[in-house]
Structure formats: C-alpha cells, structure tokens
C-alpha cells in the first residue's frame, strides 16, 4: 500500500521533510543532541530493567 495524503489532516504535525540536506546546521545540532539524549534514555531503561532481574538494582 502506498503512503497516502490526508484528506482531513493537513496540519502542522503532518509529515516533515526527511532529507538531512534540507536541515539547517542549528537544527541538525539540536537533532543530534536529542538523538544522544533519547539513546541514553533507552540505554538507561534497558540497563535498569536487566539489573532488576539480576538483583543488582
């Protein structure tokens, strides 16, 4: 099934451009920071989860 465009929802939260080339340096910095933060959160969740099972939390 191909991606379809919204009939009802042409709002600001619709698909944004994905190409990094179109993203400014400042925004790219924010995105990299956000990525690192989100990756750190995910790693912390996995770590806490498994430490709990190993009885180390």
């Amino acid at each position, binding site marked *: 099934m191909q991606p*379809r465009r919204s009939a009802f929802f042409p709002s600001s939260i619709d698909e944004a451009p994905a190409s990094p080339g179109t993203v400014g340096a400042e925004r790219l910095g924010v995105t990299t920071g956000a990525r690192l933060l989100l990756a750190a959160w995910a790693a912390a969740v996995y770590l806490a989860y498994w430490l709990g099972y190993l009885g180390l939390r």
Partner: protein
Amino acid sequence: MIDALLLVLVLLAAAAGGLAVLRLMGALPEAEDERGLVGLAVGLGLAGALGLALAAVSALRPAPLGVAAALALALGGRDLVFAVRAAIRATNLRSAWPFLLVCAVVLAVEATAMLAPPIGGDQTKYHLVYPRLYAERGGLVATPWSFWGQMQFLPNFLFAIGFALRGDVLARFLNAMLGVLAALALSRLVGRRLGGPGAVAGALFFTLPITFSLMTRAGADLAVVLYGALAASALLDWMDTGRASDLRLVAVTAGLAGGSKVMGLLVPALAGLVVVVVLLRSELPVRRALGPVLAFGLLAFACASPCYVRNAVDTGNPLYPFGYSVFGGRHWSRAASEYLADYYEQYQTTYAARRDGAPYAGVELARFPWDLTMHPESFENAARQSLDVGPFALAFLPAVLLVRRRRRAVLLTAALGVAYASVIATAAWAHPRYVVPGVALALAAAVPAARTLLGARVFAAVVALTVAGNLALTSRLLRPLWSDQVRVATGRLAPNTFLRRHSPRFAFWERANAAIPPDGRVLVLEKVPHPYYIERPYVLASYLEQGLVDYRALREPAALATAARALGVTHVALDVSALDASGDPFETDVARLWRGFVGSETDLVLRADGFALYALRPASAFAARKAAARG
C-alpha cells in the same frame, strides 16, 4: 486433534461470517489482503454475540451452532476464498521468516500448556467458570450469588461456544487465537500505516512475557488488544482517505473492543474523540459532519452492547456491579460497593509495598510507566515476569519525536496508546494487564521510532536482544507446570493427576465432589472463590463478591443456616483460613459468623488442603415452624 479440527472449523465459519457482515455494512477493508485478518477478528467478536444470543434462548448447543456456521459459510464463503488468496499472494516471508519462526515456537509451547487442564489466574475464578456453566446447561444460568456471572463479555461467550462444542481445550485455543490475531493486527498497523517493520512489532508483542501469561490463561484482555489495534489501523486509513467504509470499520472494531471488557469501552471513546476532532478540523459544515459522527456512535454502540444489555436485563445495571451509584442493581448495595473499593485499595497497598511505594495518588501516577516496566510484580500477587511488558516501549516511545516518515500516524498511535493507559491507570486501576491494549499501541509506535533513532543495524541488534530477553524471561514462566503439561498433552500423565499435583483447590474439590450427592447443593464460604473445579450445584457466599447472602443483615449462625436452607443448600465448603481473617471489622464479623455457623449448624465431612466440607444439618422442627411462620 479433534480440538484443532474444531478450531479450524470455528475459525473458517467466523471469518466467513465476519466478512459477510462487513460486506453487508459496507465496512470491508480496502486492502484485499487484510480482509481475512479483519474478517476473522470481527467474526470472532460476532460469534461471541451469537453465543450470548443462543444462550439467552437456551440454544447454546452444537446443532444450532452448526446451523449458524453453515449459514456463515454460505454467505461469506466466497469472500473468504478471495481473502485467503489475496493474503497468500501478499505474503512475503523474505525478511519476516525469523520472526514468524520464533513466534511459531512460542505458540507451540503455549498450545502444549493449553492441552492440560487450566490452573490459576482469573480463568478459574470467572473467565472459564460461567462459560462452562452456560455450555453445560445450554443457556444462561442465573448466578445472583456472584457478580462475576455478569462480568461475562464477548470473549467469554466465545469460550462458551468452545465448551458447548468440545471443552476447555477448544475454549483456550480460541483465547489464544485472539492473541495470534492481535500480534498480526499490530504487525499490519506498523507495517502498513506506520512505515516500520511489521514483523518486528508482531514478534516483540507476541514474545512478551505478559503475552505468554494472557495466552495460557483465558481472559478478555487479548481481545481488547486485537480490536484496539484494528480500530487504530482503520482510523488512520479513514484519516488518510475519508472513506465512509473505513469509518464504519473503526466503529465496528472499536465497538467490539468495548464489548469485550468494561475497560475496553475506552477504545470507542478515544476513537470517537479523534473522529470528532478530525471532522471539526475539516472544512465540512457541522451539519454534514454530524452524519458520520452519529453513524460511528450507533454502530460502535451496537457492536459493544450485547453483554451490557444482558446485564441491564438481569440486574438493572449494564455495568453491574460497577456504577451502582448511577444505575443501582439487584443483590448489591452501596455498602457492598464501598467495601469492594476498600478491598481493591487494600490489595493495591499490599503489593505496592514490593516497590516500596503506595497506591498512586495525583502526580505520583507519572511513576506508573517506570514501575510498570521495572516492578510489574508490585501490582498483583504474581512473579515479575508473568506481568512483564518488556523495556522496549518505555525505552523507545520518546523517540517518536524524531520520526519524520508517517509522522502523523506514528504520533497518533502513540497518543492513543498513552491515552488508553493513562485513563485506565487514573480512573480505573494502574495494573499491567489492564493497560496492555495501550502498551501494545505504544509498542507499535515505538518500533519505527527505535529504527529512526538507532539506524538499521543497531535497531536489528536491539530487536534481536529484546526478543531473546523476552524468551529467556518467558522460559522462567514454564516452571513448575510446563513439563507436566507436556506429559498430559502426550498422554503420559492423567489430567486429574496433573491437577492433584499442582492445585490444592482441585485436590480438595475432587474429594468434596465425591462426598456430595449429585442432587446436593454446596454453599461455598470463601472470600474470593475459584469455583472451576466444583462439579456439584453450588452457591457462592463470599462477603466481597455478592450481596444475595447479605452479611450486613445476617448476624446469627441460625439466620445464615435458614438463608442457606432456603437456597436448597445441603453442604457447606469452607476456606479454613477465612475463620481467622480479621483484615477489617466487617471481615472479623463474618469470620465470627462463619465460625459459629459451621460449629452449630453443620457436621464435618472432610478436611483437606486448607478447605473443609460440612453437611448442613436439617432444620429442627421448632426452627422449621419459626421459618415457615416468617416465610
């Protein structure tokens, strides 16, 4: 083997019936290769409604069920053939086969457990108890001595069909089918609507330890996951295309979620809210927008309503025993409602101590996602892994903010999942099993989010590790039952020996059943009875779960004996530990009453495994005259 054959026949008939009804409503999915999945899911929900209808007219028998199946196949057989062909054509196993293989192994392990008699969980309290009762009698049975008799929804009447056709194995196979379909529906949601790898989403859900628990213990939660995922998919389709058929499919699937469990009513509520918001934001005039909203509401109500209508007819309260202050209800009271609420509060307090906490209040609810992931054992008397929802959703849900492709669909799916879990946790009960439909949607949204965050290679490694972790934890759930379940499945262990070995409750009831004559009737004095193993007519007289025998009015042993005799009781079964219960003043009073009752009005027949069976003495001539004069 016969169970598997009957399962296939039920599934074929349900899918054909579901497709026929969807065609009649003009609600068939546009994608032909999805019609089989959606038709089967809707057909199983409608089969539940059929089970209730047949039970209501005392026709819950194989012959009427066979006629209904033949009719469904005649009306929808052609659609079914096309749907199966389309699904086969569209199946691409190139990248999905490792996930399918893992899920197939998990399913085989679960199916083996289903071949042995059920043990533990709410299935022996009510999910299988009343369906079996209805199937044995061929119709509905009035059970005013337990509100669980009214907590019977579409999946339960599907189980009743399983019992009517064959027995507990078929009933539990049908429960498992709801889980398999839920995984497939989540896979379709992610693969088709969210731009992520669908097979990954299906496997992540299907291998969760909590999913194993839900697959091997019959209940209604998997049905809500299934219909919630299908409703979310149809909603996204409708938002993309504006097709009326998609909106009708949202209404049908969301309605079936509401018909599967009281908490499932949140699915049509949330879907309806999205529909209203989308229509308000569109350029449609309000008058033209009203039509779709009304159509949605009516269709969702019709699909959700059968079991609530039955409850309203039986008790005067569609949500019985909940909502007493609004609807009232027979054999219940405000005091009983308050006591039940106190019990649940006490229950939550007891287990919250496992996370060094207390039941959530106010902003403390913000801790729930963390506790849900890290301390699922702090919500119920269960091992951590039996309620474990895995770390994936909590770890990667925040990354939805990074997703650009199908961003709106991913955000809406995440929002629906979070909203479902939040409302249930806030307004009902923050409990892993109750929020599973929301967790499943959050998990679905987290899949494309994780891939965006991690990139393809790291994502694949994380998925592999997560699935391996899920399997490792699930394997711990196999003890202590699974090896004996395999023996039962392969005929090397008798089912009763298995039950005797693992269930003290069965061990008692096996002897008690033999001691009570077939025309006897046993009064069960237990706070939370699990009556699945009782083979004689019974009346449950809990002081928590019913109001027919009202302990607020009965204060003396003789009065309880008179009430019991009026119910035709010949024997009394007692949870011996209840005699020393003193958790609150009411419980202390009831324990005193029960002590006096069994001491002065009964004779001990047997005592075993924490339970005791007594014979109720006949009324003395004087007492009988007094009762007759009063009566």
